């Protein structure tokens, strides 16, 4: 470590009555205990910056700083609008590359890699118990491995690069207890659309959410990524699925370092508890122009679509592509639909290529793009006036994918595949 030699994060120590977020924030700010509302100076383990890196680099230059607190704590991934689509993007990406080289940032991933969140988890840069901040609101996804992830702006990223720390308010916590098991055709995405719809876009505003319940051991790490990613859309600061055997299995081949999972104390206090029975859920769709505007599939079935986007950090993992491919196998998409498939990362693309999933998606009529954020961030796959897109992404905000007169609906990969076949929003259960 090349930064402030005076500061050493404390090891996680035995304390009573703390939630996961409280324990991680206490550990990273060198305190033995913290409580909700308290403001601490926390030292993140990892600072992620994506395509916004050049902006943070420009702030560093503006303030006259030349030295990073610790280059090993930086991770840079060029995922939005990659490869560069205009000269301006090319110049900005060049600035980011030069910055990484100049400062010896080893965790640098260029335009071939994929979406930052997925790339960093695949590469073993995310450990249970870590504090991770980054230039992306969906940093909450790191909670799928038990890390506290949260988004910040580019100026603040520059500040953490320089000083190693940032002020953070300790959030209150909510327990979500998930029991039962999914019915056929219902997935983690449907669970989250159900929760966001019933709790609202600020239903867990500024809170930390922890997922428990008898269903959790059966949720794959891919499911947990979808869950903690989408949790952002109900306003959370961070979200956690406490690490278990599935987490250990995922990390086994990826993580060389020792890690120390952080769990809540039995007497930790929560602002509230929400119970969900998975068996009661059905496929859900978020309607324009807010994620909280969710409806059960039956209400929107038959809505015409022009484009289907299978992509994003929410639902372009290998498991998601498999779910879609199973439905699309041996079938053709509707001639009026453009199916755009953007695998989340190069690893996912390779896996889908080797298993034949990619071939199925292409043969059904899909266009496979390079890995990255793709159409979710407005890169390719833009919508014209009056067009409707069904997307597996996490946001359907007005104009996000093109025209202010276009519409975006959100669903699971299964609902997306069924809908691409029929040319209209359709229930995936009839294809199972």
């Amino acid at each position, binding site marked *: 470590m090349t930064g402030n030699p005076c500061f050493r994060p404390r090891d996680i120590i035995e304390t009573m009555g703390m939630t996961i977020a409280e324990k991680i924030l206490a550990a990273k700010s060198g305190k033995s205990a913290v409580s909700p509302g308290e403001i601490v100076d926390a030292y993140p383990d990892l600072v992620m910056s994506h395509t916004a890196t050049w902006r943070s680099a*420009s702030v560093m230059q503006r303030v006259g700083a030349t030295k990073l607190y610790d280059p090993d704590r930086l991770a840079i991934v060029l995922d939005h609008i990659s490869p560069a689509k205009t000269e301006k993007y090319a110049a900005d990406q060049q600035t980011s590359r030069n910055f990484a080289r100049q400062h010896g940032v080893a965790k640098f991933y260029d335009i071939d890699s994929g979406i930052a969140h997925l790339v960093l988890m695949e590469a073993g840069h995310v450990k249970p118990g870590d504090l991770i901040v980054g230039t992306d609101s969906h940093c909450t996804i790191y909670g799928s491995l038990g890390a506290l992830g*949260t988004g910040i702006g580019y100026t*603040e990223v*520059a500040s953490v690069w320089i000083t190693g720390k940032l002020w953070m308010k300790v959030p209150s916590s909510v327990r979500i207890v998930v029991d039962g098991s999914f019915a056929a055709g219902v997935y983690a995405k449907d669970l989250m659309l159900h929760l966001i719809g019933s709790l609202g876009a600020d239903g867990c*505003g500024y809170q930390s959410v922890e997922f428990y319940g008898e269903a959790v051991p059966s949720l794959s790490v891919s499911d947990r990524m979808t869950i903690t990613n989408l949790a952002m859309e109900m306003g959370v600061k961070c979200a956690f699925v406490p690490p278990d055997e599935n987490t250990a299995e995922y990390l086994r081949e990826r993580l060389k370092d020792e890690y120390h999972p952080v769990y809540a104390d039995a007497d930790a206090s929560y602002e509230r508890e929400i119970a969900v029975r998975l068996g009661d859920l059905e496929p859900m769709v978020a309607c324009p122009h807010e994620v909280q505007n969710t409806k059960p599939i039956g209400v929107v079935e038959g809505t015409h679509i022009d484009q289907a986007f299978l992509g994003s950090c929410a639902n372009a993992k290998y498991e998601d592509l498999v779910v879609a491919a199973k439905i699309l196998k041996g079938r053709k998409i509707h001639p009026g639909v453009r199916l755009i498939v953007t695998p989340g990362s190069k690893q996912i693309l390779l896996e889908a290529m080797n298993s034949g999933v990619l071939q199925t998606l292409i043969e059904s009529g899909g266009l496979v793009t390079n890995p990255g954020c793709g159409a979710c961030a407005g890169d390719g796959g833009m919508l014209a006036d009056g067009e409707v897109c069904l997307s597996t992404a996490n946001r359907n905000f007005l*104009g996000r994918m093109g025209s202010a007169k276009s519409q975006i609906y959100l669903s699971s990969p299964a609902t997306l595949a069924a809908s691409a076949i029929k040319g209209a929003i359709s229930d995936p259960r009839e294809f199972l």
Partner: protein
Amino acid sequence: MTEIQGRIFKFGDNINSDVIIPGRYLIYIDREKLAQHAFEMLGDGFPDKLRNFDILVAGRNFGCGSAREQAATAIQGLGIKAVVACSFARTFYRNAINDGLPIVECPELYAAVQEGDEIRIDLTGGKIAHGSDQYSFPVMAQSVRKILELGGLAEYLKSQM
């Protein structure tokens, strides 16, 4: 800077940062360029009509969605001097402070005001005056206010170098 006075424009709940500044304009960090496209997805004379106002008053969860800092920058570029909301999404809240845009959480004010009304915000005193009515809000910690007073986190960092 501790007192801000002016005419308000009123927004509803859950105004997201994609609406405040669409992703396609994140290639800019300059206030003026961003301001030209702020809220343009809403049509209806946006963003130019906002140039006739000084303060935005919004409902719950203002600035939700993307962590893009330019949402705060674009609002400043329109000449808006402060945002008063029932609540803010946390990324916008931080970005506003870091960008030097004063923000106030005061849910009581919302129902009492109409577009075009004059209000006066006393940032250090934690009070908003609207006609003869007065509303209180919790004052920010001194350390955070310092960042705002210097014009944002970059200026603050510069002062620490």
